[in-house]
């Protein structure tokens, strides 16, 4: 049987990356003066596992590199060495090297040996030069095919406790008989009387003769596991005179054979394309699911029985059953969704390293506090929120936190504080990035925004609104574009990315006290809380997160603008009215605004009122893409299937507002011309 071990590589890469994250995290928290044994053990185990896996799955370079790490960590673990700051540093760099080695292996790329060699050298320098532990792979006994036929005599006297190690002489005989022609004579003279015989003890011994093309090592190998539990002599009939007691069974003349390295699949770089995204799910979640499916089956069989001989008297039972079915279905749906949920620590764990590296580089002193790392969110959301978060944290460190002397002067602790919080709020996950730095310079932001024509010179702005201007395109608050945050990715991109996930970001800041960025994201991209609205004969879904309120239109609040567009006065604000039937070319129940319904929505910081015919129910809907079989449509974010099997379209509020604005401008310019 031949098994292609490359099929396990995917799991290996995944667990290795996870392990390296854990290792990095532990190293970052490591206090070299008071090393916790368990921390070292955890780090050691990662190196150990990666090495074992890499060797097994044919990644020789990775295995060799990890071997040095493992040996160093083993020595630290065993107290032979102490971990120095330099050691932590080298180990951290080793983590980087390993990550890139693994990433390259995974992608089927050539490995870059220059850096790995350098770090390996530093690792080896840290190791004792005269250390007995050499960097060798598993020794394999080389079998000699040109072996002469030899006759061997084996005397095998097990100790009485042999069985207690789970070994059985029969096993040895089976092994021997596979080597050649074997004959065993049992010697029962030390067998005690039947009354005092303990069947769990071994009182027999054997004289065995075997002949064939067999080496002594091959025989020794069969007895390897019991070498300490028996007296064993192996003599070739020819060399009887020089019979010797074999005490140490480890073969002496072993040849070192390096395991054959299987070439990585997909040298042409196809590997990344064929790889399917996978997710690791905790057993608890799977067990939950199985339980729920079990309940569903019970409900189904109950309903099935009910249906077989149904009569009206059982109507109550039926409605109970259906209620149960509904509950089962809902629970099952929730559980399935939970499978995609991962703790945000997957993203957060990058930050200690980033903060450490960056603060060293900038000469700042920063402490990072993270709360709510176990808060869960959808895997897809998680994958996309990483970069914006990194950007915001870098930004806080670079522009928010002041240099130590500056902080001292302003009466603050030298060590700046960056706090990352994550928690659930309603159907959203909220992530906060808080720094106790100097805060945003609102006057400067406003000045810049005016200079760029982003806001009118006489426009009056509330403080919060000014701060939110930093998310406008083309506005960077840094006086000098540093290579830290000013990488061409501005805050506008951060906001855009967050928006594309259906979330939003805002900032609150106080001069001299610091800033707080708050990101709100939907927990999942697959399900949406929606408000169903009716326009003419069509049903649309408005995402509940976009809805501010719903109101009945009062005539006195309607304002006509040039007879073309209407604004609605909403307390202090004036918001444009979007007639959905017009936007979508439908025939509505009524075209008069009076006494109609206005759904006030917000998207991209803009408010507008959607004029609809009727408000229907609120419900959770499963988002289906229009693009799978069709294409993206302006003003729509997708579709869903309602309870009656029909398709309802989901509104993309931001898109809708943008196109309404465009057409209003076109109309306005048309009117002017």
């Amino acid at each position, binding site marked *: 049987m031949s098994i292609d071990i490359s099929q396990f590589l995917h799991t290996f890469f995944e667990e290795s990356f996870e392990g390296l994250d854990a290792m990095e995290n532990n190293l970052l928290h490591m206090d070299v003066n008071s090393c916790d044994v368990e921390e070292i053990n955890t780090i050691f185990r990662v190196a150990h596992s990666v090495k074992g896996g890499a060797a097994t799955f044919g990644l020789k370079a990775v295995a060799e590199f990890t071997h040095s790490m493992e040996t160093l960590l083993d020595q630290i673990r065993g107290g032979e060495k102490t971990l120095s700051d330099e050691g932590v540093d080298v180990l951290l760099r080793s983590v980087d090297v390993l990550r890139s080695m693994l990433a390259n292996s995974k992608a089927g790329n050539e490995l870059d040996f220059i850096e790995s060699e350098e770090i390996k050298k530093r690792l080896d320098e840290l190791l004792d030069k005269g250390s007995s532990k050499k960097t060798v792979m598993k020794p394999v006994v080389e079998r000699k095919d040109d072996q002469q036929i030899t006759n061997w005599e084996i005397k095998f006297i097990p100790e009485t406790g042999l069985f207690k190690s789970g070994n059985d002489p029969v096993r040895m005989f089976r092994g021997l008989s596979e080597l050649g022609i074997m004959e065993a004579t049992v010697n029962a003279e030390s067998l005690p009387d039947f009354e005092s015989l303990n069947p769990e003890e071994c009182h027999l011994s054997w004289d065995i003769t075997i002949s064939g093309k067999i080496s002594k090592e091959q025989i020794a190998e069969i007895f390897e596991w019991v070498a300490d539990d028996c007296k064993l002599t192996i003599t070739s009939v020819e060399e009887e005179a020089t019979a010797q007691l074999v005490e140490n069974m480890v073969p002496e003349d072993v040849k070192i054979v390096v395991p054959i390295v299987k070439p990585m699949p997909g040298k042409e770089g196809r590997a990344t394309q064929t790889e399917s995204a996978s997710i690791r799910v905790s057993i608890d979640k799977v067990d939950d699911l199985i339980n729920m499916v079990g309940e569903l089956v019970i409900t189904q069989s109950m309903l099935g029985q009910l249906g077989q001989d149904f009569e009206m008297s059982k109507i109550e039972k039926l409605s109970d059953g259906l209620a149960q079915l509904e509950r089962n279905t809902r629970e099952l749906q929730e559980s399935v969704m939970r499978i995609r949920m991962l703790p945000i620590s997957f993203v957060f764990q990058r930050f200690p390293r980033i903060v450490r590296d960056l603060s060293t580089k900038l000469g700042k002193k920063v402490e990072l506090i993270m709360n709510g790392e176990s808060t869960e969110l959808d895997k897809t959301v998680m994958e996309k929120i990483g970069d914006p978060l990194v950007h915001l944290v870098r930004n806080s460190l670079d522009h928010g936190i002041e240099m130590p002397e500056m902080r001292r002067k302003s009466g603050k602790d030298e060590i700046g504080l960056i706090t990352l919080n994550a928690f659930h709020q309603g159907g959203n996950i909220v992530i906060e990035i808080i720094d106790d730095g100097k805060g945003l310079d609102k006057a400067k932001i406003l000045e810049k925004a005016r200079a760029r024509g982003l806001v009118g010179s006489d426009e009056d702005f509330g403080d919060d609104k000014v701060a939110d201007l930093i998310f406008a395109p083309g506005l960077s608050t840094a006086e000098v574009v540093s290579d830290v945050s000013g990488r061409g990715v501005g805050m506008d991109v951060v906001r855009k990315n967050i928006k594309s996930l259906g979330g939003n970001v805002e900032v609150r800041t106080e001069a001299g006290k610091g800033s707080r960025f708050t990101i709100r994201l939907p927990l999942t991209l697959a399900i949406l809380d929606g408000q169903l609205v009716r326009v003419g004969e069509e049903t649309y879904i408005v995402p509940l997160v976009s809805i501010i309120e719903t109101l009945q239109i009062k005539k006195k609040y309607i304002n006509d603008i040039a007879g073309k567009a209407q604004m609605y006065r909403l307390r202090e604000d004036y918001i444009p009215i979007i007639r959905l039937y017009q936007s979508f070319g439908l025939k509505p129940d009524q075209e008069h605004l009076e006494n109609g319904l206005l759904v006030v929505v917000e998207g991209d910081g803009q408010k507008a009122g959607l004029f609809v015919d009727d408000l229907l129910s609120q419900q959770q809907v499963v988002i*289906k893409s229009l693009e799978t079989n069709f294409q993206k449509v302006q*003003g729509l974010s997708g579709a869903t299937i309602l309870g009656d099997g*029909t398709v309802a379209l989901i509104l993309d509020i931001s898109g809708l507002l943008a196109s309404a604005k465009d057409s209003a401008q076109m109309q306005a310019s048309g009117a002017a011309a």
Partner: protein
Amino acid sequence: MRSENNGSDVSYSAADTQADGQGQYLTFILAGEEYGVDILRVQEIKGWDTVTPIPNTPSYIKGVINLRGTIVPIVDLRTRFGMVSIEYGPTTVVIVLRTTTVTGSTILGIVVDGVSEVYNIRQEEIKEPPQMGKEADIRFVYGLATIEEKMIILMDVDQVLNEKEMAVVEKLVA
């Protein structure tokens, strides 16, 4: 003309036609003419049912339906071909087709006046469509075949929702 416009043609002759060079075609009626589509592309035939219209799309996109959990667009083929549209009747059907695009395989439904027959047509029986005037739309035509004195127009289903064209349409609408 046809040889220049390859791509989809290749997949027809190579993948969809049986080994003996003979393919089965489902034919349908549209404004009195008989059209054929490769039967291997046909997923199912459904009666006409209401669709959910999609705003801001060309008029030939009738809307979308729920096909066992998948959102499938429905194209009115008369409108698509620039013919006079008629009221849908009892024979009106939706033929659900699998098409291939650059991005992969997609599903779409076409509304036709009615289904007709299934014919075996050999590759050599298929003639290239004649050159016609500018106004006649032959982009959708893959070839012509004559069965029992009748002319059957074989359709290139991949061209019905041609992406390039859709992109242009999208711009015009937006």
